[in-house]
């Protein structure tokens, strides 16, 4: 098996940030920017006696999908849980800035081919949000990334990939929700307050964070797909995420942005109606919600393969 085939077959869940960055764009097209050799590590961690990483837990760079330049941001959960500090955040922002510059250049140099050369920003999330060691800088970074997402509106898509060990939680859960498209695997988890924090605040009876099955029912890819928080659910390989990205990028921009969860009055109404519904039905478990939206045999949903699930899933 060639190295590339091996990489594409690799589990997205188990892949490092760098492997994900390489594997989600076309073969051999990824170039890392501000990589380890540039040694852009955190200036704050050494004073606190905390280990540093030269990429600050965030792999950034550019690759191609077809003719589309894809600016990749890939977070590494093994380094401080993928938490966002100053440099990590700045690298995220940098990727957006480069994508916008690329968009402007293509618009100018290839006005007829804008659609097939349309750039994208792809974020492979693996994070719990703000890095507590540099909390102010981390919070600011969140705000800046939000700003950057706004700047892309009407120009090119921002796509979230969620399927890594740490999941996507905290402030970065908001950031993911604000992107145009979310792709998940059934191993991906998306939420705001992390399971441990809910348990700490509300007690074990409310939410037992050690009950991984419960955590997945509430935040996992299948639930998010039923709720339409995730637009696509794919198998857990780099190749499947790559293929899904390619399929998304084939669609016209106006169609891609139909996937959004926020950004219009109609969508706000929709979200508010959902909030009302949750008060009304007071579900005891995600399974109640699945049943409400017409899914049969909800006990079996967690056990299904992705393919089996996609064949029968009823979404809201």
């Amino acid at each position, binding site marked *: 098996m060639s190295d590339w085939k091996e990489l594409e077959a690799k589990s997205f869940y188990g892949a490092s940030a760098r492997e994900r960055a390489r594997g989600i764009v076309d073969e051999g097209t990824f170039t890392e920017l501000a990589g380890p*050799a540039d040694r852009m590590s955190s200036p704050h*961690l050494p004073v606190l006696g905390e280990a540093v990483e030269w990429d600050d837990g965030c792999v950034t760079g550019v690759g191609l999908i077809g003719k589309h330049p894809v600016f990749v941001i890939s977070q590494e959960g093994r380094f401080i849980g993928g938490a966002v500090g100053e440099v990590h955040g700045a690298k995220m922002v940098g990727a957006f800035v480069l994508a916008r510059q690329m968009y402007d250049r293509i618009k100018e140099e290839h006005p007829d081919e804008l659609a097939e050369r349309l750039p994208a920003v792809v974020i492979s999330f693996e994070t719990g949000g703000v890095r507590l060691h540099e909390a102010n800088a981390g919070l600011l970074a969140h705000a800046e990334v939000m700003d950057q997402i706004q700047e892309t509106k009407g120009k090119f898509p921002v796509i979230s990939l969620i399927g890594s060990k740490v999941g996507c939680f905290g402030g970065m859960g908001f950031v993911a929700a604000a992107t145009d498209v979310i792709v998940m695997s059934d191993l991906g988890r998306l939420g705001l307050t992390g399971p441990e924090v809910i348990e700490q605040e509300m007690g074990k009876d409310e939410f037992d964070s050690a009950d991984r099955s419960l955590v997945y029912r509430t935040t996992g890819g299948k639930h998010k797909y039923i709720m339409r928080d995730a637009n696509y659910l794919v198998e857990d390989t780099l190749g499947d995420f790559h293929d899904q990205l390619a399929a998304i990028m084939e669609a016209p921009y106006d169609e891609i942005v139909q996937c959004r969860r926020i950004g219009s009055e109609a969508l706000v109404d929709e979200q508010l109606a959902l909030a009302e519904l949750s008060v009304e039905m007071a579900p005891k478990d995600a399974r109640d919600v699945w049943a409400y939206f017409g899914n049969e045999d909800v006990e079996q949903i967690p056990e299904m393969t992705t393919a089996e699930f996609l064949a029968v899933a009823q979404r809201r």
Partner: protein
Amino acid sequence: MALRELNFTFTPDEPRPFPVGWSHRGVVGSGDMEVMFEQRDLGGDVQIKVCTPVVGFDEVWERVLDRFVRESQVSDAVIEINDNNATPVVVSMRMRQAMEEARKEAE
């Protein structure tokens, strides 16, 4: 307590200069480390810098790295390590993997 920096220089008996411009390996997870090898003409020496939060194991680092240099005979390189409590076996494995990757790439 701030991060600590340890510096070592070794002189292998039968130096094998580092074959590529640079090579990087590893993630600074808990109990793990990353290592960067960079080609540099050091007249047959090899310099190693370790950045670590761990106190009290300077001699262990020296012995582990000395053995790596003896086994690989790597020379003319600056090696930097960002450590987060990696055990000697992890250090040896990561170093060996980065070295082999580089030698494979050079072939």
